[in-house]
């Protein structure tokens, strides 16, 4: 029968639903819960150097997160967010990329910019909004970005980076770059309209993007059963015609394998891939949040037991690539480094008042020049009232 194409396909003659749970997507695992490689599991491409770079980043981020949460409690920074519990997911995925790939993240992925080489000073300058912050002190703490490191500056509005990643990747493909775009987002952000737009456009327009969903169980206080009714985020990929994988986000080797496989596919086919990494936000949403109001200690402990850093460390040790002594030394080194950087950054002068009006446009237009000069005259009248007056002499 010469039926037009989009009315073709198999037929049924009894009314029946495709169940909303029809697709149950399995989870890729390489390590078991104790950090031992599962029999017959496929290994990612990893050697000792790469493993050390990954573990080094893990240790660094643990130290940084711990230190900055205290700093926030002490009132030294206004705000902070940790990635505790998701280190394996974030670092394992970053390690599966090439340094030329653009990373467009949500906010909880500072481990990825660290993996690329963001220094303690870089971190601290941003956290303290000082004059050396690459972002010129304009965004709240944790909104990192670096052109040099191909890490797009974080933007607070959720999910906006998703269609942007599609566009970025499309541009990379058209210009024949040997690079892709990695787009991170939370399972909460995946409810935004921009998610839908970004993934569908990537599929249709063949943008070399990896969409990496960090499903960590919560969006602030909202648990996943109040966020979606399907089997997580992964089945949506199939809805868009996108190749999809689910991975144990607390299994660093599985994550690395997933991303390496995905990157290869994306570059070879100029098509997107969706990865859903199952993990857990072990800490509070941010320093403004207290999770005891919406979840149990038991639940947290269950997840703490299968923590990805512990599992990766156990594997490293079993490989003979790492010892407890090295571990202690590494943590000690980073504790000192971070604390020193913090003390330095605290004292760096804030950006000059001129930065209040720069970068709104490529040049400062007349009306902003005028507003700035009026402001300066005003400040000169009340120097005691304005911090900027103190800085200027």
């Amino acid at each position, binding site marked *: 029968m010469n039926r037009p194409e989009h009315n073709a396909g198999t037929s049924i003659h009894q009314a029946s639903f495709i169940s909303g749970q029809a697709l149950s997507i399995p989870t890729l695992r390489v390590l078991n819960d104790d950090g031992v490689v599962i029999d017959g599991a496929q290994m990612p491409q990893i050697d000792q150097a790469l493993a050390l770079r990954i573990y080094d980043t893990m240790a660094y981020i643990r130290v940084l997160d711990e230190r900055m949460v205290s700093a926030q409690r002490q009132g030294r920074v206004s705000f902070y967010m940790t990635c505790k519990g998701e280190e394996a997911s974030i670092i394992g995925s970053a390690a599966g990329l090439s340094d030329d790939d653009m990373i467009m993240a949500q906010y909880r992925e500072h481990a990825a910019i660290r993996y690329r080489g963001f220094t303690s000073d870089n971190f601290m300058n941003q956290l303290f909004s000082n004059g050396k912050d690459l972002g010129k*002190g304009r965004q709240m703490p944790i909104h990192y970005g670096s052109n040099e490191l191909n890490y797009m500056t974080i933007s607070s*509005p959720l999910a906006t980076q998703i269609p942007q990643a599609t566009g970025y990747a499309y541009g990379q493909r058209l210009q024949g770059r040997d690079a892709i775009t990695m787009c991170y987002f939370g399972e909460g952000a995946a409810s935004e309209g921009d998610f839908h737009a970004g993934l569908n456009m990537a599929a249709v327009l063949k943008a070399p993007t990896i969409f990496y969903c960090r499903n960590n169980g919560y969006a*602030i*206080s909202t648990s996943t059963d109040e966020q979606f009714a399907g089997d997580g985020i992964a089945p949506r990929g199939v809805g868009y015609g996108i190749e999809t994988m689910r991975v144990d986000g607390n299994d660093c080797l599985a994550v690395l394998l997933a991303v390496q496989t995905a990157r290869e596919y994306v570059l070879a086919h100029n098509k997107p891939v969706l990865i859903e990494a199952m993990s857990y936000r072990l800490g509070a949403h941010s320093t403004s949040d207290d999770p005891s*109001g*919406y979840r149990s200690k038991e639940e947290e402990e269950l997840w703490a037991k299968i923590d990805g850093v512990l599992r990766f460390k156990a594997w490293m040790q079993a490989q003979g690539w790492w010892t407890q002594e090295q571990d202690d030394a590494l943590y000690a080194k980073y504790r000192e480094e971070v604390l020193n950087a913090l003390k330095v950054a605290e004292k760096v002068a804030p950006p000059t008042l001129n930065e209040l*009006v720069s970068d*709104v446009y490529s040049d400062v237009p007349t009306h902003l020049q005028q*507003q700035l000069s009026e402001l300066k005259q005003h400040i000169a009248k009340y120097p005691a009232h*304005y911090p900027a007056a103190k800085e200027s002499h």
Partner: protein
Amino acid sequence: MAQMNLLHAINNALDLAMEKNDKVLCFGEDVGHFGGVFRSTSGLQDKYGKERCFNTPLTEQGIIGFANGLAAQGSVPIAEIQFADYIFPAFDQIVNETAKFRYRSGNEFNVGSLVIRTPYGGGIAGGLYHSQSPEAYFTGTPGIKVVVPRNPHQAKGLLLASINDDNPVVFFEPKRLYRASIGEVPEEAYEIELGKAEVVSAGSDVTLLGWGAQMEYIEKASDMAKEIGISCEVVDLRTLLPWDVETIAQSVTKTGRLIISHEAPLTGGFAGEISATISEKCFLHLESPISRVCGLDTPYPLIQEKEYIADHLKIFEAIKASVNF
């Protein structure tokens, strides 16, 4: 009467509205069990159940689309947008749908029962995405009302009036004052009429006009002016759309001078509209140019927030300039 902060006053208004009418629903991101990131819906899920006070998935366009549907159906939705900075994904649902629902259908359908609550404004070290005052994006939209309270008493009365009003209302809550502003608030339900400005304190030399958290700076500047012998008439606009031209024109006719102050950037802010209208109405009474003391024409800054803000000192300087013109 009870002592309440602004959050309590909001919470109390919601509680009374939900108690009185079981068609009233409160929802938004983290609004349910947790009671909202600022805790303004605290306790409401326990009291009224998960069907009437609940978390939504994380989608502002969905929240307002859903709320429009509920309102058209006959429920009384009170939708929360977690920060006014995040209202823009819902902009189409508000500007093209909420605002035009009644008009386009010839009143076959309307969403008059809808209230959209959202915390706005700076002063909390929130940077460009937790500080915006986007009211002027809404005041150019016929079909909605825009309301901003300045303290707990006003907040409760204006919110209850917004819920009971037969038109959709965007209700901006000054988050800087959530805990900072405390005052006496009647425990029972009461309404403050929408569309009416309030003369907060009478004066003769210059009219100072604002709304929301900005009223604090304005009152402070007025006090400073008093000390040097300038008498200010302080007016809180309260409802920005449709706004009370008459009260403002009357005041300016009397004082001959007007200073408008808002947190949002100068260009395209609502002060421009007020200035233009009052210039037309009071042309022959104006003794000096209407002046606007507003945010700079930049995104909201972080580290230079103090310098950026249209604070009492800037308003005070504008008062002197106006009187000495």
